[in-house]
């Protein structure tokens, strides 16, 4: 009955809206609407309700669903971590509730029990959640930063961070957005050039000497350098505003990150929900001897919900936007004692990988080279088609050198508590996952892998976003991959995943 009521409500509102919007045109066809939309929907609702049944056994909730394809879902009470009761006015009127059963598996609620008497709902909560209701009391210990901060980012570090990162584009994008609204571009640019030339100080005058090619090229270079400097300046400003006074503190069991000049953010990182930690050193980071650390947390539904709208699920947050690369490992250790990126013994991936990666580039470059040669041959440019060979003869050795570096620096490590994977050149990223946080472990083989007896190993974690470095070890010998897989399985089997 409640499904039916819900369906009626879901249908009536848009229908009314449509009728109002079409100013009565549709009104004449209301009978059709009734016939083809509302009646089938009601029938569907009634049938669905007949079909959707649930039952409580001593250890699990069993939900049956489906008319043609029948489905029986078994949900252990031990796995239910939230029973949300939802009551709209009709529910309240009748003294019932809808219970949403949620487990750690993401996405939709695992079961939706539509009409549950309040006693039954309470009983369900008691059985399902058991004694686990007590930890929710921790919310009272708010705003009590106990220890000394784990990390504080002073302004000069934020300046460095601004230089390292490319966030200036965010500001530029905003500026361009505003400017394009003001029609500022619609002006005579040659006049701007002339006025600039008229006002240029004596020492810069030579840049504007008309007719001089060198002058124009130099002017271009100066403008580009200016633009880069401006971008970096914007970037620095952005970081200073956004991450001013970034402070990471230990708060009871959790971490609290506080930052911001204008909008002050205070975000809690529940340590026990950290699934994966990544230490990144980009090329520019390396130049400054710095690193950044981010963590992926799961179950922070407010956070994941926030980013899901943009299509890119980002469950990552910064543990440290910038930190001295010598201190990064110590900071990770302090937060997650099981993970020590300095004390692990790295094992390499297969050196044969170089050839495979280079092969891919060869396959990509060949048609481009042929195209280039064809263009040179048939175009008025006074160069023969053979000059097209310059492309591969430059690109391929460079690719080969870079790939060799990349493969040599990629690697994995296993300790008795966690798995590590590192990759990247000229920057580098190291990710680590504790065994308790692993979900399924998988080995993948593409047809090419198969031909060369190689495979990759992937570790799945909860709340993994769609961006960022993770444990996905490519180009392993297939036997090595099998043994890693088995080892990981044994480790996961013997540990319990906790929220």
């Amino acid at each position, binding site marked *: 009955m409640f499904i039916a009521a819900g369906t009626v409500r879901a249908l009536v509102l848009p229908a009314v809206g449509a009728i109002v919007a079409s100013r009565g045109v549709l009104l004449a066809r209301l009978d059709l609407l009734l016939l083809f939309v509302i009646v089938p929907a009601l029938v569907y609702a009634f049938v669905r309700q007949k079909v959707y049944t649930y039952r409580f*056994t001593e250890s699990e909730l069993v939900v049956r669903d489906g008319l043609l394809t*029948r489905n029986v879902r*078994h949900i252990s009470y031990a796995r239910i971590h939230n029973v949300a009761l939802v009551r709209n006015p009709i529910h309240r009127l009748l003294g019932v509730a809808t219970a949403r059963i949620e487990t750690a*598996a993401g996405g939709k609620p*695992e079961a939706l029990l539509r009409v549950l008497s309040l006693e039954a709902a309470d009983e369900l909560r008691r059985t399902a959640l058991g004694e686990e209701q007590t930890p929710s009391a921790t919310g009272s210990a708010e705003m009590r930063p106990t220890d000394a901060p784990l990390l504080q980012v002073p302004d000069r570090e934020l300046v460095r961070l601004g230089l390292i990162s490319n966030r200036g584009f965010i500001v530029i994008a905003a500026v361009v957005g505003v400017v394009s609204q003001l029609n500022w571009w619609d002006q005579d640019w040659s006049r701007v050039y002339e006025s600039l030339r008229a006002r240029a100080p004596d020492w810069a005058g030579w840049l504007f000497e008309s007719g001089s090619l060198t002058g124009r090229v130099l002017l271009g270079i100066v403008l580009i350098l200016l633009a880069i400097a401006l971008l970096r300046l914007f970037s620095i400003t952005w970081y200073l505003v956004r991450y001013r006074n970034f402070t990471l503190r230990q708060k009871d069991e959790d971490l609290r990150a506080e930052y911001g000049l204008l909008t002050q953010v205070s975000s809690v990182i529940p340590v026990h929900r950290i699934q994966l930690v990544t230490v990144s050193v980009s090329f520019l980071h390396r130049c400054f001897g710095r690193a950044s650390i981010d963590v992926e947390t799961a179950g922070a539904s407010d956070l994941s919900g926030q980013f899901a709208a943009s299509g890119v699920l980002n469950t990552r947050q910064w543990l440290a936007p910038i930190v001295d690369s010598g201190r990064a490992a110590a900071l990770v250790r302090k937060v997650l004692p099981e993970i020590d990126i300095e004390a692990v013994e790295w094992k390499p991936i297969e050196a044969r990988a170089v050839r495979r990666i280079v092969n891919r580039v060869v396959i990509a470059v060949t048609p481009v080279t042929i195209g280039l040669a064809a263009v040179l041959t048939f175009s008025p440019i006074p160069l023969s088609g053979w000059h097209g060979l310059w492309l591969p003869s430059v690109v391929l050795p460079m690719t080969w050198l870079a790939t060799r570096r990349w493969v040599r620096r990629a690697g994995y490590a296993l300790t008795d508590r966690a798995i590590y994977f590192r990759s990247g050149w000229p920057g580098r990223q190291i990710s680590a996952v504790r065994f308790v946080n692993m*979900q399924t472990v*998988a080995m993948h083989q593409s047809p090419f892998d198969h031909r060369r007896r190689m495979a990759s190993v992937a570790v799945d974690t909860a709340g993994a976003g769609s961006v960022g470095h993770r444990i996905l070890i490519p180009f392993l010998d297939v036997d090595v991959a099998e043994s890693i897989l088995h080892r990981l399985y044994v480790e*996961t*089997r013997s540990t319990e995943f906790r929220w």
Partner: protein
Amino acid sequence: MDDRDQTSNSDPAPAPASIVDGQEHRVDPRSVKVARIIGVSVTLPLALIPLIFVTIGWALGGIPSPVYFALFAGLLLLLALLVLFAYRWPAVRHERLRYLVDEGGLRIRRGVFWRKVVWIPISRVQHTDFSQGPVQRSFGLATLTVHTAGTAGASISLGGLEHGIATRLCDHLRPDRATDAD
């Protein structure tokens, strides 16, 4: 209801522990037949649609006869290939699909061109789905879907299991058992 009812009372003769043998198994060979029935019954009507359209076009005089016969032959060939694929593919796939059950979890090995081996430890199982489509039901087969808290491996299905095996596997993968054992 002929599908799974209680966790304890439904199983006939073989001892419940017998699926937990650490050996690789194939799923029920009848699943090939099920997949063929579904595959052919979906591809055949779909592949017939262009054929029908072309014939209508020809009958109405929109398409000249020689073109029509060429098109018809081409489409017929395409249809034959599609149906052949729908018929052959399930067997190839079945050949490469293996599962293994041990005390701690389930391993599935599958894939013809892109191969994949995945281990699902019982300690990470959130809940299981046991489902039967109409065709599966008539053959006494079922699909088991295991849900974990993961992301890429959030739900992993194993189709074409014999009903009794699926039921026992479902029982075996109940997470509280693993918890008790610790």
